[in-house]
């Protein structure tokens, strides 16, 4: 009958709330001082997530829930496996 000569492949599920890179200046103790060029006024909370260490894709993150000088709340984390800072809704 009619063959499709090149229909786009079926869309696949995507992850929601993927981490996005963030520009973070950290102090000597590793806590953020600036996030996306805004000074950090308050670190509300800090926690660690170490998970999936038994797989090829381990997760080791140090999260900070911070309030910036504009009053905005942000959650950023330092990725201990890949390096670099990311922002994400926690």
């Amino acid at each position, binding site marked *: 009958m009619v063959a499709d*000569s090149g229909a786009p492949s079926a869309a696949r599920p995507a*992850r929601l709330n993927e981490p996005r890179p963030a520009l973070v200046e950290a102090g000597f103790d590793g806590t953020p001082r600036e996030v996306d060029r805004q000074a950090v006024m308050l670190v509300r909370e800090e926690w660690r997530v170490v998970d999936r260490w038994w797989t090829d894709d381990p997760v080791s993150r140090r999260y900070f829930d911070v309030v910036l000088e504009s009053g905005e709340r942000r959650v950023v984390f330092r990725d201990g496996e890949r390096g670099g800072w990311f922002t994400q809704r926690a």
Partner: protein
Amino acid sequence: MVACILIPGFELRAALRERPRLATRAAALAPLPGSDPLVGCVTSAAEAAGVRPGMRLGEALGMCPSLELVEHDPAEAGQAWEGVVRRLEDEGFAVEPAGIGCLYFETRGVERLYGGVAGALERALAALGSSWDARAGAAERKFAALAAASVARAGQALVVEGEQTTDFLAPLPLSLLPLDETRYAELEGLGMKTVGQLASLPGSAVAERLGQDGRRAWSLARGGDRRRVRPRRPPAEIAERLEFGEAVGNEVTLRRALGTLVERTLGRADRADRAVRKLALSARLVGGGSWQRSLTLREPTAEKERLRVALGTKLAELPAPVTAIGLELVELAEWTGQQLELVRPEGSRARSRLKEGLRQARASAGTGAVCTVVEVAPWSRIPERRALLVPRD
């Protein structure tokens, strides 16, 4: 019994119908644009020069510098295949196409008409004529029928009786089984060369070593399961075509042409007021070659405007100006109208509007445009693992 008709290299044969002089020379189907540079089916002259289907293009040209590459023409191959299937249906065979170049049918219903299984196969081959070099096989099960057709010569019909199936399959090469290249290499590394050698192994050991694919191949090597032939319902042939005097790439002109095609196809008397479920839009490109897209509607309709909107998005995918454009109503719904309720249930209007809105968004933005959030691991400490965006198609 199950019969199989096989036409090896059908796409190349269809493409060569317009260039018959190439049939006797070394020629091969060119790689598809954007895919790996591997040659497709080859002519017997190319095969004699050492070129094999699936060979890398550079290697093939190195082996046979005079090799001529034939562009893929999916629309032409599709039409030619439809012609083959219809010819058999006209002879009374209820056919199940299994991809281009291969089809099955049950002989039980036509054996008395054509004087037995062999008579039915000969009739089928005669209906196709000699130009396609078709071959036929019949056996108790589909895979054995396919194997019989694969080893038959052009124009020959081979019937494998039930008790002979295992002996018939045993010496055949492993390449008949649907496995990927790495699996063939793995089996060859283990010293396996024939279907019979694989069939003699314990099924659990094959499944453990080769996984699900291997287990299926092992099952086929032992004759395969008794899957019934599911004949298709012959589709209505409602198609219209517009030829342009010169190449057209202007979207406004193409949309007008599409509007005309939609009106013409919907106006055909043989549609008998039935709604359309599936359509195919095709075009002949200016540099030769063809383009084709099919579209299945979520809800069958015969509204011109809806069809125009749904098909309009496909026009943007045209890779080059066109010299002709065609529209075919591939599948029609059985019903001719929709019964409306006297008293609509609460919320049904909002639901139908939402459904229609989603349908429109999907039609204009394509597959994956409308998604649902599905919680998969809400307890996870890793935020991105808690939910997925799943396309609602």
